[in-house]
């Protein structure tokens, strides 16, 4: 008589589904902050090299309450919004033109692609020569940094609109203007937004670099100022504020995206 053995089948991909409780993240961040604070309190690392989180927050608060932060923030915001708006508007416009006109495409796209890899900050000296050392060059460098990714995304957004949508529109009698307005523009919008989001990071980076080179006020100038003075807690507070600025900028764009592209 044969004996039969039973082999129960077990889930061999259980490891993929392993769950980590939600509080771990919170605990993780808290733990790291506590550890950091402890390292500083016990003077394992000198406070000059690594200021304690509480010290950073305290100094950050001081920057806020003394109005110093506001002054610098306003200077930076003015530049970043100005530059971003100019760069984005031009980028979208030129991107649309290149996307729609095959002639413009053939002539200008190679030029765009050869200017694109230049780190825009290298043009700052030139821009200072052209525009002087006031607000203009800072706004211009940000605009330039924003212009290219937005242009290229707009262009590729227009080029990559699903051709079957265009064909459908044409079959249902849409005119050229209608196709552009009702199909190509909304179809390119998600890609344009991707460009705008990419450009936000670049804008912030260029802002800080530009302010480091010739500015009295601004978050970048402030960070460099405290770096020069070796007041590291305030420097870190400035960096913290930059991180928040970046986060807010990104969130704002995400919010706008959800508003403008509800169908995604």
């Amino acid at each position: 008589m044969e004996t039969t053995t039973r082999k129960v089948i077990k889930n061999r991909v259980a490891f993929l589904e392993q769950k980590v409780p939600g509080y771990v993240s919170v605990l993780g961040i808290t733990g790291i902050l506590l550890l950091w604070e402890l390292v500083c309190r016990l003077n394992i690392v000198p406070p000059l090299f690594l200021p304690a989180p509480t010290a950073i927050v305290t100094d950050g608060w001081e920057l806020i309450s003394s109005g110093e932060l506001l002054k610098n923030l306003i200077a930076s915001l003015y530049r970043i919004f100005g530059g971003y708006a100019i760069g984005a508007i031009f980028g979208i416009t030129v991107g649309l033109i290149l996307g729609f006109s095959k002639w413009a495409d053939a002539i200008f796209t190679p030029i765009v692609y050869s200017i694109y890899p230049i780190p825009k900050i290298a043009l700052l000296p030139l821009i200072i020569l052209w525009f002087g050392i006031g607000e203009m060059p800072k706004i211009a460098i940000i605009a330039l940094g924003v212009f290219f990714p937005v242009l290229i995304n707009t262009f590729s957004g227009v080029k990559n609109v699903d051709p079957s949508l265009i064909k459908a529109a044409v079959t249902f009698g849409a005119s050229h203007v209608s196709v552009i307005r009702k199909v190509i523009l909304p179809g390119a919008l998600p890609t344009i937004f991707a460009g705008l989001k990419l450009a936000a990071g670049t804008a912030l980076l260029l802002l800080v670099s530009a302010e480091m080179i010739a500015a009295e006020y601004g978050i970048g100038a402030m960070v460099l100022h405290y770096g020069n003075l070796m007041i590291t807690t305030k420097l870190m507070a400035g960096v913290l504020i930059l991180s928040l600025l970046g986060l807010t900028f990104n969130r704002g764009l995400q919010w706008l995206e959800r508003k403008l592209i509800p169908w995604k």
Partner: protein
Amino acid sequence: MRVVVENVEKTFVDSKKNEVLALEDINFSIEKEEFVVLVGPSGCGKSTLLNIVGGLLSPTKGQVYFESSNDKDPTLGIVFQEIALFPWRSVFENVTFGLEERGVSKKERAEKGKHYIEMVGLTGFEAAYPKQLSGGMKQRAGIARALAVEPDLLLMDEPFSALDAQTRTIMQEELLTIWNRTRLSTLYVTHNIQEAVYLADRVIVLSRHPGHIKKIIPIELPKIGRDQEKYRSQFERYSNEIWELIRHDAEEALKEA
């Protein structure tokens, strides 16, 4: 209104700059209220032909024309396999797109939109965006969009091939019901032989390399109820005939990378 395809030939230039003859010597017509189905193996040029008829591609030779008694420009409705609903428009806005482009008044758009949305069974989903619909529902919206312009010729390129087998069966039945109410001249492309026999007044069988008409088979069965027991053997005979015409080509197509 009658559609005539006359001596159509189409040559493509492929990525290696070689000329590829996709269609050759295509001649047929679609009569008023006729449902013509194009079948053929993969790559035989079904979509190319449909696009030429729809004015989405130029033929290299020959022409396609509408014969009609009035001077009105013919209107077309089209349904794609990829559905091609505008993702940024609600179901209602998609369905009434063609009317909008024809300058139809808002009131009439609302009426017709409602009517055709109801016809395809999407009442209640007027405000939904395409991403909120299942595959079958999207394709219904696509059909409503094509019907809403009350076209002189309805073009459908494998509309159901992305759906699962059961959904496809249901949709075929529904399409037939709708067609029976609207009686639009239709050019329909499919891979599926059963579908072709089930829907067609005439089946045009294409062969490949280059695509040309192998045979035109009129389906002499009543338009409604072809799946009944009594027509089964005749249905099978048509299917087998077409399959025999295509089989070799289809096996070849499968071998192509």
